[in-house]
């Protein structure tokens, strides 16, 4: 209570300082949430690519490439180190997309069990079931969590895709990554869909059953992934073979730079907030010089004066922290809610981020109070008593 009365002595100044900290923490929370989202996307991608080599014919990640032929699977299996080769079909879902953050909605189809148990990146089914070999050729689908939410559909409902109706048999748990925006179809159903989507001239020359847009290769245990990828690219000059390390290198480093920039912006705002705490506390000490002199004269130890002022500065930081985290959370929730319908989920506010921001803010305030508190404690009580 005594402490709050001290803060209330100069209400406007205290309020402005708290506002400064609040804005800094708000920026840190919002930007960190954005960085969290990017990290989740990338780590999802990184998890997906780990332990495998994805072979596609041009487009990054196999999206939008020219159709390859299914019979190339045998040739790939002949490459030393390529132990399991799983064909897959991917295509962009044709529904109109808004400006989107993260991967676009995509259709994915692979034969059930073709990974021979090697796939480690298997999103959990939240409701319904996974696709099985019995589903081949059927118009059934398992939806990622974001797609299900965006289209307001549950297991047993249906969605329309390329003018066909698909029964929803399962919905996945959220992963914050590509599976959330994936429409999984049985392999042959996906082949048929891609085939129908080809330009008429090409379509006549390709059989639906031959269509494949990427091969996922699970190398033999102990095999050098880069060597396998190099061998594939040497054998098939038109394809790209992307390893887990390759993905991390090409995406990870640019994401790290992006994240550093956005978190850096938040930190700069905080430094400004911290300077305003130093300024406030220094002015407060100057105004209270006589009072500090009295306290020292009647027996307050230096340690106690330092503690009083640092706690006061820490409370400024803590109040700014609470308000900043609350405002940041509000922006994150409103921003995500507004963007959800168009698939633009920009932020991911984790409890760690919120707790870190609060603790950081409190520490920043406390540390900013050190110098003014120290100089207050060093005052000569007699000189301070005479101070006008």
């Amino acid at each position, binding site marked *: 209570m*005594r402490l709050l*009365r*001290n803060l209330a*002595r100069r209400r406007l100044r205290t309020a402005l300082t708290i506002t400064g900290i609040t804005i800094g923490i708000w920026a840190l929370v919002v930007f960190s949430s954005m960085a969290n989202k990017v990290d989740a996307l990338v780590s999802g991608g990184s998890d997906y690519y780990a332990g495998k080599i994805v072979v596609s014919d041009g487009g990054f990640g196999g999206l939008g490439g020219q159709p390859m032929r299914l019979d190339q699977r045998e040739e790939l299996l002949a490459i030393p180190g390529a132990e399991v080769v799983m064909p897959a079909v991917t295509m962009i879902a044709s529904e109109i997309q808004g400006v989107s953050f993260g991967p676009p909605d995509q259709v994915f189809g692979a034969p059930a069990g073709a990974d021979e148990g090697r796939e480690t990146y298997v999103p959990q089914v939240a409701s319904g079931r996974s696709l099985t070999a019995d589903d081949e050729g059927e118009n059934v689908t398992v939806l990622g969590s974001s797609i299900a939410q965006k289209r307001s559909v549950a297991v047993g409902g249906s969605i329309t895709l390329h003018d066909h109706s698909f029964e929803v048999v399962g919905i996945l748990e959220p992963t914050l990554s590509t599976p959330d925006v994936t429409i999984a179809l049985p392999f042959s159903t996906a082949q048929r869909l891609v085939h129908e989507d080809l330009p008429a001239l090409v379509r006549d020359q390709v059989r639906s059953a031959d269509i494949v847009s990427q091969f996922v290769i699970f190398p033999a245990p102990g095999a050098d992934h880069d060597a396998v990828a190099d061998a594939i690219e040497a054998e098939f000059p038109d394809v790209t073979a992307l390893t887990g390390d390759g993905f991390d290198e090409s995406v990870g480093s640019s994401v790290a730079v992006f994240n550093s920039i956005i978190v850096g912006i938040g930190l700069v705002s905080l430094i400004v907030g911290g300077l305003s705490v130093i300024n406030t506390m220094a002015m407060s000490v100057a105004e209270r010089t*006589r*009072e500090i002199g*009295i*306290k*020292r*004269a*009647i*027996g*307050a*130890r*230096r340690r*106690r004066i330092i503690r009083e002022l640092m706690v006061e500065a820490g409370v400024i930081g803590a109040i700014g922290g609470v308000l900043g985290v609350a405002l940041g959370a509000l922006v994150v929730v409103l921003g995500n809610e507004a963007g959800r319908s168009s698939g633009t989920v920009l932020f991911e506010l984790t409890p760690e981020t919120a707790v870190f921001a609060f603790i950081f803010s409190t520490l920043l305030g406390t540390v900013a109070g050190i110098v003014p508190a120290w100089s207050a404690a060093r005052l000569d*009580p*007699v000189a301070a*008593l005479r101070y006008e």
Partner: protein
Amino acid sequence: MAILEGRNLRKTYRLSRTNSVEALRGVDVTIDSGEMVAIMGPSGSGKSTLMHVLGLLHQPDANHGAPPELAFAGRRMTDLADNQRTRIRATDMGFVFQAFNLVPTLTAVENVALAAEYAGTARSTARTAALDALGLVGLADRADHRPAELSGGEQQRVAVARALVNRPKLVIGDEPTGNLDSTRSAEVLELMRGLNRAEGHTFLIVTHDAEVGAACDRIIGMRDGRVVSDSRQAAPAAH
């Protein structure tokens, strides 16, 4: 019995590289327990400096002249570190300053309790002691008022209560009536005189005010950093 004994007390303040002031030029002084003593003298005579040295707020100079000696309650003070002197100020001394010497954001009882807390008393006990001390100075009913809500005389009485809350061996006043009109001044003086007689508190008061001097048992006169007179009064003026 002497509560405070000083010998060879010197203090020189350096105002600049070439200019310094010899505020104390070798003062010997003894204050007995239970006395009410006034230190008087013109501005610049060294009376405030003497009070700061005797109140352990400043150390006497040890780098020139005969080595200083200062004993409080029989204990040597000249070698103590800042923290130890602060501790003694908190537990065994009380201070009343000229003006504006209360913490403005705290109520009367909180101001008094603060001194008890600095002396190591728990907060709840400190509050009880503070209320008792306010009762002693006749301000029990003003305990929850802030300084701005009290008159100048009442504020000084709160300061006296704060000086007494730890039942100190010595109360030091620096012009305690300096900012009060004659009526309020007489009130505060009477309070201190009464407490000295009734409770046996030792008072050491720096003052310009002849009336304050007249109310004390003894007047130490100072000029140019030296004690020039020391007179006991057989019958101090009654207030």
